[in-house]
């Protein structure tokens, strides 16, 4: 059975310093085993400016078993599958420890974005490009960031404004918009049913 009181604590803890880390974790549904994590693209990398969503699935044995994580946002990176979003990261496999948290795992993924490990690739095509032709790699990665990781950022402030005017609290509006990937109608539906 997932230790939900720990997950609750993790969520509070993580969202408390969201302004510092930029990393947030929110429940996707109401049972706390499906979550969505958000990490900002690290500054100084082709991912800068993008907001990346990560699908998190907590297995029954959590926290003694690692959470299952994969990118929901398409991303061009040697250690992340450009097709499925699967992540090649040791702490999500055999190096997991129950003393790690969702936030530390997301921080590690963020670190992976700034420091790819092409010697241990998930996506062979990307890894090869990274090593043989870094310029093309960087511009592809930037292009993917522009195309896939910024969709909701355009006009997000207007959407927030609109929903807040409807009478929903701003914090809730922002997190809901994030969960549904910026879709205004879906956010409204979710806010009304909550």
């Amino acid at each position, binding site marked *: 059975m997932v230790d939900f009181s720990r997950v609750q604590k993790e969520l509070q803890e993580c969202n408390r310093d969201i302004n510092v880390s930029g990393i947030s974790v929110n429940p996707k549904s109401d049972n706390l085993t499906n979550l969505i994590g958000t990490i900002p693209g690290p500054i100084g990398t082709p991912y800068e400016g993008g907001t990346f969503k990560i699908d998190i699935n907590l297995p029954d044995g959590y926290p003694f078993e690692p959470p299952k994580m994969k990118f929901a946002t398409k991303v061009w990176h040697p250690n992340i599958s450009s097709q499925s979003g699967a992540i090649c990261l040791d702490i999500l496999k055999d190096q997991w420890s129950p*003393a790690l948290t969702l936030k530390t795992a997301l921080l590690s993924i963020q670190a992976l974005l700034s420091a790819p490990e092409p010697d241990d690739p998930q996506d062979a095509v990307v890894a090869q490009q990274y090593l043989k032709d870094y310029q093309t790699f960087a511009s592809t990665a930037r292009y993917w960031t522009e195309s896939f990781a910024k969709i909701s950022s355009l006009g997000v402030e207007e959407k927030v404004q609109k929903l807040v005017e409807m009478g929903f609290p701003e914090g809730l509006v922002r997190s809901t918009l994030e969960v549904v990937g910026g879709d205004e109608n879906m956010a409204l539906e979710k806010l009304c049913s909550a």
Partner: protein
Amino acid sequence: MDSEDDMHDANDAESLDDDFYSGETAMDSDDGDAADYEFIDNDSDDSDDLLSRRSQQNYTILNESDIHLRQEDDIMKIASILSISNVAAAILLRHYNWSVSKVNDEWFADEEKVRRVVGLLEDPRALPNVKELTCGICFEVYSSDSMRSAACGHPFCVTCWQGYISTSINDGPGCLMLRCPDPSCSAAVGQDMIVSMASHEDTEKYQRYFLRSFVEDNRKTKWCPAPGCDYAVDFIVGGGTFDVTCGCSYSFCWNCTEEAHRPVDCDTVSKWIMKNSAESENMNWILANSKPCPKCKRPIEKNQGCMHITCTPPCKFEFCWLCLGAWSDHGERTGGFYACNRYEAAKQEGVYDDTEKRREMAKNSLERYTHYYERWATNQSSRQKALADLQQMQSIHLEKLSDRQGQPESQLKFITEAWLQIVECRRVLKWTYAYGYYLPEREHGKRQFFEYLQGEAESGLERLHQCAEKELQTYLTGGPSKDFNEFRMKLAGLTSVTRNYFENLVRALENGLSDVDGHGGSSRTGGTRSLGAGSSKSRGSRSKGAARSSRATDDSAHWSCEYCTFANAKSATVCQMCQQRR
């Protein structure tokens, strides 16, 4: 010439390097007297020895309490030599695969490094001296007396420790190398701590892994692979064959842990067994969806992630899923792994395509395969039947026979010997069919010779089987017969001849039938001589046996091994048969 002496030699399985062409004359002897047999029987009065006498004892059979004792012995030894606790000694031994000498060497070479690698802290730290502590896993606050830590002092609550320990135990033998849950800390978690917190069921599992580890991670020991058998075999590598007979009477090859398979080598056996089960659904699935770890051979299913595979503990071998090569060989140096060049290169060279092609061909030659498989399987079931007959003989018939013929049971061992020989011969014969299947079609000379030898073996064994089964019946049902001694002579003679024939057959096959050179130029080519019958060559080797010192110079192209008398090519420095140095 004294034919009885030859027969004694052949009966005495302990003298393995006796002249193996001696059997031929024993057949002709019909003037032996009972006194000679009495001598043999007194010589070997322990009937339980029969099986073990058949092999060189370069191994020991261990039952569970033997294993426990050895394990505890080793732990105590290390604990007292290094002046550390038993728990720490166990952790050290486990880490160095239960090699006492390796632990000693490493420890005294660099104690600090060993401590770091294994996770044994020199100064254990207690829990921080405060009233309340936060558990590093569930983040709840507890009073410090309900917290526990390993030697490093990182506090976790008992519930979380239990979850951590239980998950790890149910994850497999990796629990024997448990570390502190703190990711930055490598302090080992000892057996005492695990046992004190794990549930009863988990503790049992843990102890099981602990015992198994002593056998499985130890280079010198293996479990007997017979179903339901709990014995382990401690093997001294070097010299002799890999054949081992367990305390449960199952014979197996220590090297590949398949059943004993002389004269066929381990690779052929694994190919053959794989082939036999190729039709089965299970095997199809495993072949299609998994690959064996290149190091420990456990099948691995790749269900996610990258090509960099790490086998589960204790193996932990890191390899490339595509080419199954060590991951350490994959790097920029070797051209990269992203599309594993090694794999692509091999594909271009046709290595992988060849495997495919061979698979296709095997399908087409299904008929040929069925021929060999049927005979292989028939001998297998014959052997099972003979084993059952042997057991019945020992439990019922021998006593009856002893009554009827007025002979003490100790005088009837030749019957058990005969049946044991039948069982052994069926086993050899069975494997010659796997041998025949893999003998290349194009080597006509060898094939002809092989089929001749196999045919002779079949008929020789039939003769022995017939005598032990049918002729014995008359003495089992009738009263005391004066012919009984004659029967004894005949059966013992047949046993000895058949044993010699099969021992030579095994050697000849293991030798790759090297007597036959493709051109068939020499007088030794197939069909002209049988292994049992005396030929000029066999007499030659006998005279060599008499004058050992001159062996090496006797035949300029070969040298005869001192231990097994195998004729090796001149260039070889180690005997091809028994691996002894020249």
